[in-house]
């Protein structure tokens, strides 16, 4: 059994975990554990974008959770563990906290697919103080820092994990000079800010910047407008685009003044999951997903699948569906999950973020997977991506862990 190893146990709760797990050794015994998970979503208003070529699937995220449910149920049948998933989807602007409060007992293991504000209002509900919530959508750094919550883990990436991954690849290729095109609005400003921070971290220089303003129909006139926009850029290796909503970036590529790769929001992108990931058995996950959903698996599906598998793995190993038992186990050194990315994934104990390898991909293939060889780290090379322990301003987790002791 996994729990009988030499790693130090953390307090009494884990001690009992080991005992339960010990009972499961040998012929699996029927344990009769019921695991109820709720996928709670606040739908996003449809994005107004120039091209309709890549519509956002209506069941984005949900299908990932359903696949995770099916995977868990298969394991559960050998253990006497039954898994159930309810999906609750609210229209844009819906009251996530009110809905979460209504769930009561059924709402103690929740996957939250919603924006920053809703994530916090759900996590702060008194009735969910002992619940375990998995953020599968919000990438905001603040949720991993000042606004972290002890009951909120993140299987969605922190935005900085992805921008760090992209900059690692640039540095490995010695493409160290970037020109940045920044779209309008706060989301693009946040993305551009993450690019800048990651560029600084990995020694990539942003030599020129241009603001993208929404003028004209790029489907018709990109070939005229983009060369002019990019003509004034200082000598650069890549054109970095901050276009969070996938609006204009596709029209930049192959229209620049000088021939340069376009990266960030199109071209070369850092994504937590993409259809081109096929190594490490990923092809099997991709084909299982395709059979279930009839479409390719995307990052939010992956985050939801991972969240379900984290729950499943914890229930399998501990024999308990208690949210606090699951939390203690998944934050312990014993926990690791195979997630088809070549290295096990686990959680950062300082802010509840899933640490995972980040594929950096183009439309047809994986270009690299961060952390790349040579980016070492005192603890785990995966922690070279995103908020690391020394810089995290999250205190909820340390406090919670100390309380646990």
């Amino acid at each position, binding site marked *: 059994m996994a729990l009988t190893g030499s790693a130090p146990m953390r307090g009494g709760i884990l001690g009992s975990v080991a005992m339960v797990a010990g009972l499961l*050794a040998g012929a*699996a015994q029927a344990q009769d554990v019921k695991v109820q998970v709720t996928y709670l979503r606040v739908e996003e208003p449809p994005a107004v974008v120039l091209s309709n070529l890549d519509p956002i699937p209506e069941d984005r995220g949900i299908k990932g959770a359903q696949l995770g449910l099916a995977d868990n149920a*298969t394991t559960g049948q050998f253990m006497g563990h039954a898994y159930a998933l309810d999906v609750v989807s609210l229209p844009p602007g819906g009251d996530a906290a009110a809905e979460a409060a209504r769930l009561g007992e059924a709402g103690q293991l929740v996957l939250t697919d919603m924006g920053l504000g809703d994530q916090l209002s759900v996590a702060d509900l008194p009735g969910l103080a002992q619940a375990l919530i998995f953020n599968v959508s919000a990438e905001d750094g603040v949720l991993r820092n000042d606004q972290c919550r002890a009951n909120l883990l993140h299987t969605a990436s922190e935005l900085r994990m992805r921008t760090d991954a992209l900059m690692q690849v640039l540095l490995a290729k010695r493409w160290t000079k970037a020109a940045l095109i920044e779209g309008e609005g706060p989301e693009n400003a946040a993305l551009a800010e993450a690019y800048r921070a990651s560029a600084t971290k990995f020694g990539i220089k942003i030599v020129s910047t241009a603001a993208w303003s929404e003028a004209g129909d790029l489907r018709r006139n990109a070939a005229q407008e983009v060369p002019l926009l990019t003509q004034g850029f200082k000598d650069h290796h890549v054109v970095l685009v901050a276009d969070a909503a996938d609006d204009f970036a596709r029209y930049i590529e192959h229209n620049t003044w000088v021939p340069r790769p376009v990266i960030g929001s199109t071209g070369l992108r850092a994504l937590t999951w993409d259809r081109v990931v096929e190594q490490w*058995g990923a092809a*099997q996950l991709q084909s299982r997903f395709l059979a279930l959903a009839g479409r390719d698996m995307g990052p939010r599906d992956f985050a939801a699948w991972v969240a379900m598998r984290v729950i499943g793995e914890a229930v*399998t190993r501990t024999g308990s569906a208690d949210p606090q038992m699951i939390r203690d186990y998944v934050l312990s050194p014993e926990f690791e999950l*195979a997630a088809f990315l070549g290295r096990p994934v686990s959680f950062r104990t300082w802010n509840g973020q899933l640490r995972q390898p980040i594929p950096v991909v183009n439309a047809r293939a994986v270009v690299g997977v961060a952390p790349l060889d040579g980016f070492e780290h005192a603890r785990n090379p995966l922690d070279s991506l995103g908020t690391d322990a020394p810089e995290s301003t999250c205190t909820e987790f340390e406090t919670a862990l100390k309380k646990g002791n």
Partner: protein
Amino acid sequence: MLRVSTLALCLGLASPAVASEIWVTNEKDDTISVIDIDTLEVVRTIPTGERPRGITFNSDRSRVYICASDSNAVQVMDPETGEILHDLPSGADPEQFVLSPDDRYLWIANEDDAVTTVVDVETRKVVAQINVGIEPEGMAVSPDGKTVITTSETTNMAHWIDTETRSIRANTLVDARPRHAEFIKDGAELWVSAEIGGTISVFDTSNQSEITKIRFDIQGVHPDLIQPVGFELTPDQKTAFVALGPSNHVAVVNAETYEVEDYLLVGRRVWHMAFSPDHSQLFTTNGVSGDVTVIDVAARKAVKSIKVGRFPWGAATR
């Protein structure tokens, strides 16, 4: 993989006309590379179905079975001619299999379908399908033929299947992503490697209890990259060689004390392995570097690297 007892038996019967060979499946080439043990060169390249992975010979070496994963078939080949005689119905996406000691039944892991399929190789019919965990892969049969093991990669279990009733008798949890299983020491122990967990679990087969867990530690290699996959034991069952995947090393394990005694540098992403018939040499398939490393077993040294096809995966001794 071939079991040692079968191999020893075969040696006595081996046809003198055939030089000993190592057969290697090339996952991304749809071929088999045949290595002559005397010259250590590829002497034949044989086309197969799509994505060949698991490979095994029957006892008298008159047939070779190949999992052609993406063709959804097990192919039956005449090793003399390299001709594919027929396909066996295998269920979807067969990855690994094991042949019953009487050569009659193939037990096949169907990776995409979460089932183990039992095929009668004489009637060429599926005689049973057994529901197992997600992504079944590793297959092993006990020397007495009474127990077959399927390991499931995402469910993280070894399923103990009673071959008479063709139903699961027990399930034991192992670490993350179990890849390969072998009965050793005349069936007294079952070893299961866990690729992402980074361990080999050792079970007492009399009661399915865990005896110990073998762990690996290579200086300068992050533990996450030490990923045990295939392994083989010397005929005396005293020494195990364990492929450690992207760490590019093979571990030498004392199978009596369960201590790791040595790490041998081989090619990149080492998967599986096969001994020469006299067990003086061990051949490892190295997926990423596209070659086979020859290890001198007594000296515990890599002595040669042989270029084969793209992404070599399985290996079997002829």
